[in-house]
């Protein structure tokens, strides 16, 4: 069974957004923290725990859309840790979609207490329908993030 993870995170600071992108892409991420300017060293050390993204792109003005191939492992824990690390690295909010063998498995969001939890008050059938109607998981995640911010 294969898992993929899509995360939409809010990063207000443009420099931070660029650094997160740099530190998560295989082609650009430094190997050691000594290569990183001091102000971004903590951010690098947090993101160094994460695997390189398969894909990343800006989403709207202040968001980043990130996708990982997770392979085997404990996907639920990996998802929670990934979102938490993005928050530690400077994102102010994030929502994640976990896919198993191409099927949407769960949506995760950052709760008011800072914990990352599975969103279980969304009807799964309705969720799947909404995702397909959006035809873009990040568009759908955007509606969740926006709803939280209102």
């Amino acid at each position, binding site marked *: 069974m294969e898992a993929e993870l899509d995360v939409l995170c809010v990063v207000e600071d443009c420099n931070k957004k660029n650094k997160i992108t740099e530190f998560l892409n295989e082609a650009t991420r430094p*190997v*050691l923290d000594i290569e990183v300017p001091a102000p971004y060293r903590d951010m690098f*050390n947090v993101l*160094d*725990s*994460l*695997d390189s993204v398969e894909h990343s792109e800006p989403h709207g003005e202040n968001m980043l859309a990130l996708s990982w191939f997770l*392979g*085997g*492992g*404990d996907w639920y824990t990996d998802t929670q*840790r990934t979102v938490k690390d993005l928050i530690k690295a400077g994102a102010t909010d994030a929502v994640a979609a976990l896919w198993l063998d191409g099927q949407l498995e769960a949506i995760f969001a950052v709760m008011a207490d800072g914990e990352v939890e599975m969103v279980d008050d969304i009807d799964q059938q309705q969720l799947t329908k909404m995702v397909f109607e959006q035809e873009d998981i990040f568009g759908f995640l955007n509606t969740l993030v926006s709803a939280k911010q209102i």
Partner: protein
Amino acid sequence: MHQANIHLNQWQPDNPQWMKQRTEEWAHIKANLNKMHPRIPRRSQRFHKQLFFYGIVDPILSDLDAMMRENIAPPFPGYLPFFKMWYLPQPSAAAFKEIFEVEERLNPLSLSRSALFYVFDDMLFSSDYGMCGGREELMVKTFIPNFDHQQCLVQGRQKYYFNLVPDSVLKLCVYATLQLLDDGNINPFAPGQYLWDNLNDSSERHPDLIFKKNRDEVSLRMCLRLILDWDDRDDAPKHLAHCAKLRATLLARFEAGDFSPILMKYWQQEKLDYQEGKPSLTY
């Protein structure tokens, strides 16, 4: 927890040229650690960097402690000595022996053989770097200090799975050699290929234990045939120097009668069948 690294003088983090070379090797290591996922969590890679680039052991120990606190089993027995040997900048038999002896006082290291032979499939590491960048032969010789499995048994738990009993020596040795001589599409430093002397010893001391199943004899005969018909086969991996060298070495040793009577008996049988044009045995 603190455990000093005993070879700290080998690390030169202040030397830019040395760091450049280490960074180049790290790319291979990272690729292999990714192949070892999920047994080795990706999150552990940053702790591995501390050992690889700076010779600092503590982060890996803390990581193992954290796994235990979270009730996650350690990735495999002998995790620390395995990586200490892999990441040692100047590998040598003496340095590996020193690591072995220090670790042996803390943990039964016969279990560490699992990482070399059982945990990770040779097929995963078919790049030129192999699994541990060519350190595999020294690691095999370190983790198996005696040819006789009875002497190795007392160094660890009496747990057969991780101990190299005679028939498992045969399986591991013949499997790796078969793959290397057939298409070469495995770790060029596949640890099993370094077990021919162990196999030879087992066949002399424990001939009754070595061939438990007919399949084991067939495997050995198939392996011997690949040595014999190497020049005839268009698909033999002659372009791979390490495969050609292994074949040449084994051919020379068998032709010189450098193996036990029981192995030489199989060689003579297979050679006769080959010369008479009989097909190779199959399972």
